[in-house]
C-alpha cells in the first residue's frame, strides 16, 4: 500500500479503456510547483508491426486487445510505484495503462516521473516500464487478417526487469 504522501507529492495509477492526454498528465504533476527539475514521460504505442517477426502468416496487425486482471492490475502497479519511490527521490509519478481493443498508432501505456534531478526521473521511468512489462497482469491478444494469437512474453523483457534486481519489488 502507498505510504501516506507528504503534502505536494502526487502519485497516480489508473487502469482505463479510454485514451489518455500526455500533456494533461504532465501538467497535473507539475502545475504550480517550483521544486521539479525534471519530468520524464514514456508513451508506449501499438505498432503495426508489433511482434511482426513472429506472425505466423506475416500479416499486419489489425489490433491488439489487452486483457487484464481488474482486481490486481492497479494494486500491482501501485506496488511498483511504491518501490520506485524507495529507490529515487520522486516528487510525483503517474502510470496509466489501457485495456480493451487498441489499433496501431494508439497509446497503450503512459509513465510520467517527476524529480528534482534528471537521473532519478529517467531511471524511475525506465524501472517502472521494465517492471510493468513483466509484473503488471495484462495480456495482449493480437488480431491479424488471418489469425489471432496471444503475444508471447519476451525474454528481453525479463532481462530488462532483472537489471534492477538486487532486492526485487
Amino acid at each position, binding site marked *: 500500500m502507498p505510504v501516506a504522501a507528504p503534502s505536494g507529492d502526487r502519485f497516480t495509477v489508473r487502469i482505463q479503456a479510454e485514451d489518455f492526454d500526455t500533456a494533461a498528465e504532465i501538467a497535473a504533476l507539475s502545475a504550480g510547483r517550483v521544486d521539479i527539475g525534471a519530468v520524464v514521460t514514456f508513451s508506449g504505442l501499438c505498432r503495426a508491426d508489433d511482434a511482426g517477426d513472429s506472425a505466423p502468416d506475416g500479416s499486419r496487425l489489425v489490433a491488439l486487445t489487452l486483457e487484464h486482471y481488474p482486481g*490486481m492490475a492497479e494494486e500491482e502497479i501501485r506496488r511498483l510505484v511504491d518501490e520506485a519511490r524507495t529507490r529515487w527521490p520522486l516528487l510525483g509519478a503517474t502510470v496509466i495503462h489501457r485495456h480493451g481493443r487498441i489499433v496501431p498508432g494508439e497509446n497503450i501505456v503512459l509513465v510520467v516521473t517527476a524529480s528534482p534531478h534528471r537521473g532519478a526521473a529517467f531511471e524511475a521511468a525506465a524501472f517502472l516500464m521494465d517492471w510493468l512489462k513483466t509484473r503488471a497482469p495484462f*495480456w*495482449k491478444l493480437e488480431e491479424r487478417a488471418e489469425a489471432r494469437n496471444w503475444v508471447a512474453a519476451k525474454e528481453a523483457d525479463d532481462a530488462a526487469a532483472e537489471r534492477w534486481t538486487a532486492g526485487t519489488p
Partner: protein
Amino acid sequence: MKILYFAWVRERIGREAEEVEAPDEVRTVAELAAFLAARGEGYAEAFKEPKVVRAAIDRRHARPDAAIAGAREIAFFPPMTGG
C-alpha cells in the same frame, strides 16, 4: 476458494472464474495447478506446461511453492505481456 483464469489459460479452460474446494492435501500453488489439471481436457491443456503458468494469491504474484492456506482468490495466467 475462488479461482480466476486469464488469457489463454482462460480460453483453454473455457471459463473466467469458478469456486473450487480443494482437498486438504493440496497445499501449494503447484499442487493446486496439478489438482485442477486433472479436472478435464481443457484444464489439462491449460496446465500442460506447468512452469509457464503463473499464479497470484489474493492479487499478489505467488511462486509455485507458495502455500494456499487461507487464500480467498487464486488466479492462473500466462506470463504477462502488458506495457
